[in-house]
């Protein structure tokens, strides 16, 4: 849409880097050791989740600090339904639907009551924490014992269970590629422009005819559903979930940091950020000999450096700052009757 010379260049370099990394993983995967593969699967899962967060946190500008809520809903729905003999793929779909409803409700309520910025971040955090406490005490979902998924030996795509780690890696790589393709399409589509418009200035966006509430709700529901799919993958991969982990602040943080590092509201930022973060994290773990806390120290330092020195993330290095006199968003023709906008 905004076809300046710079806006084509930066993303291409980023796409090349990410593509090369994905190809390397794909080619070397069969020869990877167990530990390395676990590390890679985790990194790709969080790259996928970061991209999901990016839809609402980056494009729509709703900084959620509680996406673990959706992740946990996806993980628990799949796990609990699985215990009752429901196929995990169906569980994944049901979980995604639940999460989409929750995400839509969150967007509608926060829009209706004008919960924005830091208040929105804090209320999403409170939502995730509420679910954590509820699920830790809810007997039907295993309370504090968590949920154990039965494993029947043998690999089967239909049963979403595999004997080795390799299929899980392929699966999550596929998911990450799919969500990135979706975000890339969104980035070019007018809906992506609407989202960016309402991120920059809701009043102006509304005055140009963007139905802010509608698109914010779509973005929130979509991001929540996709995040829940990640949760379902997590359940099937680890075969055990517990509320303090899947609803934990750590999950929410791990989804946000790669996006901040890579570049908020860009197609390649979340993946670049994950790519940069993974080696730093592994290095810190090795340096501190796997003592707990190393990740958090790394996160803290990354955040401080990014916020103070790189507010637009790594993508900001590739792409010059937009000029002030040039509007960040191309003019939008009113797609809906004026009356539909608030």
């Amino acid at each position, binding site marked *: 849409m905004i076809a300046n010379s710079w806006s084509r260049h930066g993303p291409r370099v980023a796409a090349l880097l990410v593509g090369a990394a994905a190809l390397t993983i794909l080619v070397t995967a069969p020869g990877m050791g167990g530990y390395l593969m676990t590390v890679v699967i985790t990194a790709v899962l969080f790259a996928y989740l970061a991209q999901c967060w990016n839809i609402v946190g980056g494009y729509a500008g709703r*900084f959620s*600090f509680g996406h673990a809520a959706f992740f946990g809903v996806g993980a628990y729905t799949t796990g609990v339904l699985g215990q009752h003999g429901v196929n995990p793929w169906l569980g994944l779909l049901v979980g995604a639907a639940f999460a989409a409803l929750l995400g839509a409700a969150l967007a509608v*309520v*926060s829009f209706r*009551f*004008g*919960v924005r*910025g*830091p*208040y929105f*971040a*804090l*209320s999403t*955090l*409170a*939502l995730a*924490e*509420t679910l954590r*406490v*509820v699920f*830790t*005490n809810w007997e039907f979902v295993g309370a504090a014992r968590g949920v154990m998924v039965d494993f029947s030996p043998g690999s089967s795509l239909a049963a979403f269970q595999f004997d080795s780690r390799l299929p899980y890696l392929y699966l999550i790589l596929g998911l990450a590629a799919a969500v990135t393709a979706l975000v890339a399409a969104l980035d070019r589509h007018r809906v992506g422009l609407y989202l960016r418009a309402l991120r920059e200035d809701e009043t102006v966006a509304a005055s140009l005819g963007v139905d802010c509430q509608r698109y914010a709700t779509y973005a929130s529901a979509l991001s929540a559903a996709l995040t829940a799919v990640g949760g379902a993958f997590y359940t099937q991969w680890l075969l055990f979930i517990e509320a303090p982990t899947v609803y934990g*602040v750590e999950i929410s*943080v791990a989804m*946000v940091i790669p996006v*901040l590092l890579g570049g908020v509201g860009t197609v390649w930022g979340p993946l670049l950020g994950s790519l940069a973060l993974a080696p730093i994290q592994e290095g810190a773990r090795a340096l*501190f000999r796997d*003592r*707990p*806390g*190393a*990740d*958090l*120290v*790394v*996160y*803290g*330092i*990354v*955040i*401080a450096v990014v*916020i*103070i020195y790189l*507010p637009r993330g790594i993508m900001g290095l590739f792409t010059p700052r937009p000029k002030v006199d040039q509007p960040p968003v191309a003019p939008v023709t009113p797609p809906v009757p004026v009356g539909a906008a608030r």
Partner: protein
Amino acid sequence: MLYAQSIVSGLLIGGVYGLIAVGLSTVFGVMKIINFAHGTIMMVGMFVVYYAWRALGVTPYVSLLFVVPLLFLFGVAVQLVLVERVIDAPPDQQLILTMGLSLFLLGGAQLLWGADFRTVDVPYGNAAFDLAGVSVSVPRLVAFVAAGALAGGLFWLLRRTDLGRSIRAVAEQPDAAAAVGINLPWTRALTFGIATGCVGVAGTLLTPFYYVTPQVGEPFTLIAFVVVALGGLGNPAGAFVGGLLVGAIEGLGGALLPGSTKQLLIFIVFLLVLVVRPQGLFGRRVAL
């Protein structure tokens, strides 16, 4: 009687919540920044108290003598080195920065001291007396009274001293304050230091009857948010009253709800307040 007991216990701890929230609220009032690291900074103070007791046998209340100056200086440094750089950045970015600080302190504490639960074992830790059938814990009562006194002192400082007037001026009209010769960065640094000093007192008061672990701070940050949300961001007096209210709600929740669900009531209240009345029960900026 069970309810009376729960409410009394809740109110006593509510005083400490109030003190923690007063700091959070003051920082918000002056800098318009939500300090997500508030509780983790308290945790650092609690570890200082713990090691002073463990290594040197210093009883917690005496530790106030060095914990408070230490956390005050830490707060001043945080403001000057980190927060001052994002003072004009969008609120989201400011919140993320303090979240980063919180993660850094939490991770650092886990690396240094491990994730175990520790307790400061002092003879008066379990002391209690009976008041009309309700058991009153002595260290909790001390915490309540001291927290109330300190919060009162802080109000006095804000209302009646030159420093307080300049802090309020910066909160009200930063540009005008700068024009009459108030040093903005320095005033903000002192404000942040005062807030972390308060949280140091709160942490110290908690140690005789509370466990010490790297994770101890985060729930207090969340509770302080609830309190501040109830009392109104930037309204320290409202924050203290909010603390008592949240303490009482938590106490009642503990009596009414099973297991570890007592926090549930708090989160629900928090969500309701954020959604329905984000300016707090008592409105914004009465005292500051």
